[in-house]
């Protein structure tokens, strides 16, 4: 069979070009822009994004840029932080943006499963810590899946739970020993709850009610 325009047309119809997702494009542009910075510190062989400090740094930078929703305005936020904006305040903003983005960008989950024994192993090699993954379907918070996020300088495991028709994003990363606080926040119509338990720092974000978050917390980490 030789080359045929009809065949090529049929192939292109069946396998159309897939434009890179916007998030990936922004990330890649940032990498291309800061390529000089990563060149010297990045390990020769990058096995996964989460294991590479260089990769994590550029992802964080990209996350900052995306969180601002303002193209290359990332510098502005970096300057703002250096001037002493409350770290919590910036983090709450980032978490809300991450939550909203996960709902908008069709990027809620990289691993879709209601089985905690499927979701938890998925993080091996992607996160450099073991997140807590507990299905709370019997408490009215069914596990839906998970993904890796980069929030406030942390590689975070994001677990996704349902609450009636709402979604709860739970961000987990290793807690610093000093952090024993419980923080309740409201931002742009979203509720946030922060607590620590079992060496992990939790930030839950949702458009469900603050009471839902408290119920989630006592079910997820009883006694904390």
């Amino acid at each position, binding site marked *: *069979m*030789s080359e*045929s325009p*009809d*065949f*090529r047309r*049929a*192939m*292109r*119809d*069946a*396998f159309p*070009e*897939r*434009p*890179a*997702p916007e998030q*990936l*494009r922004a*990330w*890649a*542009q940032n*990498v*291309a822009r800061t*390529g000089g910075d*990563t*060149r010297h510190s*990045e390990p020769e062989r*990058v096995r996964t*994004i989460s294991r*590479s400090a*260089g*990769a994590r740094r*550029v992802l964080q930078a990209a996350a900052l840029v995306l969180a601002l929703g303002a193209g290359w305005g990332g510098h502005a936020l970096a300057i703002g932080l250096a001037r002493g904006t409350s770290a919590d305040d910036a983090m709450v903003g980032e978490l809300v943006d991450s939550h909203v983005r996960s709902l908008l960008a069709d990027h809620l989950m*990289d691993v879709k499963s209601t089985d905690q024994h499927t979701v938890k192993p998925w993080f091996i090699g992607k996160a450099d810590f073991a997140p807590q993954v507990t299905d709370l379907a019997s408490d009215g918070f069914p596990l839906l899946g998970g993904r890796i996020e980069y929030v406030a300088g942390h590689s975070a495991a994001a677990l996704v739970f349902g609450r009636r028709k709402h979604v709860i994003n739970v961000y987990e990363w290793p807690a610093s020993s000093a952090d024993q606080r419980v923080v309740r926040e409201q931002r742009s119509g979203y509720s946030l709850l922060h607590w620590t338990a079992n060496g992990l720092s939790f930030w839950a974000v949702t458009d469900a009610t603050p009471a839902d978050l408290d119920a989630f917390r006592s079910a997820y980490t009883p006694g904390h």
Partner: protein
Amino acid sequence: MPHLDAAYTLAFYLVRDAADAEDVVQEAVLRAVRYLSTLRSDASARTWLLAIVRRECYSAYRARRARAEHTLERGDDEERQIVDPGERPDDAAGRSVLRSHLIAAVDALPERLRETLILREIQDCSYEEIATITEAPLGTVMSRLSRARAKLADELGGVLDIEELS
């Protein structure tokens, strides 16, 4: 970042999963960015980036694909229509039948034939570029292409007039 769409498209059709394709492209970009400035010709940059993407697809996802995880997004939201193989599609419905048969037939191709065909027909690569990207001799590329088309003609012969393929 030039050629990102081409990189993502190739990754998407090789690993057949949007999230995996994103991971692959990120790895490839991190590798590529260190050498990007040293490249002169636009065409060779594209070939070279696609070669990196392909290698990433295989190194990162061979094991995973071997477990026969086959999450093909486009397959999920499209109905696969079964037709009488003798029927000749010549209208819009027929084209959609051809399309779903073609997708299934390409997916069923052995990996080397499939990637060669995708690079040729979707990415519009020359034989020489495909040889570079897939690290295969030119003769092998041409034989893989003709085997891929022959297999498709076999598979689809009953669905569409063979003249449409040849």
